[in-house]
């Protein structure tokens, strides 16, 4: 296919018969195939990988005054406050009763896992009584912090739906965060 009969040209030495030098016209396609496959790979990967990914967020309905809201047990609630400078403060149980810990995003996963295990152990691995996480993004937090913390919950497999509460940040929480320079 890639060959052509080239019987013209050739050496013109000598006066008699024109000797036709058969040049091989077979082109080496290896490099071309390499390039083609490289491009194919590139396009295949970019088409399937450039699909945007979404994380679904559900927030509690503001207007509905639901009478049978679930009460959270303090012992299985972990509240995470998102502060500025990519810092979080978290505490277990009720606000004000336990001292919050301040951590960066690198360590929060360990804390969540530790608390998850603690709650699971205390309740005898009852699947209905797992750790409940309340996220409270404050005005100092960036959007990335919020996405990151939701992602951490996904990674640590917190099954109870996270409560995102950006309205009820108590004064005690604010004071604590201000004192530690993350609000």
């Amino acid at each position, binding site marked *: 296919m890639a060959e052509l009969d080239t019987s013209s040209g050739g050496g013109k030495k000598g006066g008699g018969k024109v000797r036709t030098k058969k040049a091989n016209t077979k082109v080496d396609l290896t490099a071309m195939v390499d390039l083609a496959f490289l491009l194919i790979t590139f396009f295949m990967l970019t088409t399937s990988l450039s699909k945007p990914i979404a994380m679904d*967020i559900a927030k509690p309905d503001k207007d509905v005054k639901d009478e049978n809201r679930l009460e959270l047990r303090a012992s299985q609630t972990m509240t995470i406050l998102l502060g500025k400078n990519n810092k979080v403060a978290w505490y277990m149980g009720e606000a004000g009763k336990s001292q919050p810990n301040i951590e960066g995003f690198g360590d929060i996963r360990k804390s969540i896992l530790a608390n998850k295990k603690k709650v699971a152990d205390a309740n005898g691995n009852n699947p209905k009584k797992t750790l409940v996480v309340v996220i409270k993004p404050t005005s100092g937090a960036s959007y990335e912090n919020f996405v990151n913390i939701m992602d951490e919950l996904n990674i640590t497999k917190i099954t109870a739906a996270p409560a995102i509460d950006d309205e009820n940040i108590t004064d005690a929480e604010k004071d604590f965060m201000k004192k530690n320079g993350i609000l």
Partner: protein
Amino acid sequence: MPRAKVKRKSTSIDMTAMCDVAFLLLTFFILTATARQPDPLDIKLPSSSYKIPVPDVDIAKLTIGHGKVFYEVAGKDVKMATLDKMAEQYKVSFTPQERERFGVIQSFGVPMQSLKAFINLPDEAARTKSGLQIGIPTDSLDNQLSAWLLNSRKAVAELHSTAMRVSIKGDAKEEYPVVKKIVDILQKQKINKFSLITTAAGGAK
């Protein structure tokens, strides 16, 4: 005894067929690949480990960055229907050509008052440069974002009889209160569930 003659065969294979296939596939992938639409707003998406792809139809996309909000609803028919409803609400009239042009405009961030001028700009580059894109007004006196959302939800419901999904593309460095303001607008319309668009994180982060 004569030595057994091993016939020397050429080791080069005919690559032609392979080359043909490769280029056929290449052409196919190039043609099916959708060109990445440049965002009018320069944002960096946060990364996450989620793997749920975003649907392409019946979805509205809010782009939040630098304190501005841009809006886009998927689908030409929905875009045009939304524009009709907005025109009615804000007492602006659009010619059929303008409707048609609006149907292919991507994400935009212009107030209703300058939308007509915005549509009539020749191309996307001129629109980006025009300085008209100051973001869609979201304050409570003139909440156009809310109107856009409501009208496109109506349009989606009428045309495709499904519920419209809302997705948020936020800049990673955007402050949370800005995002919260937008989310509050969504919640006022009882949109309590929405998707945050992120990029895939490379490995365990």
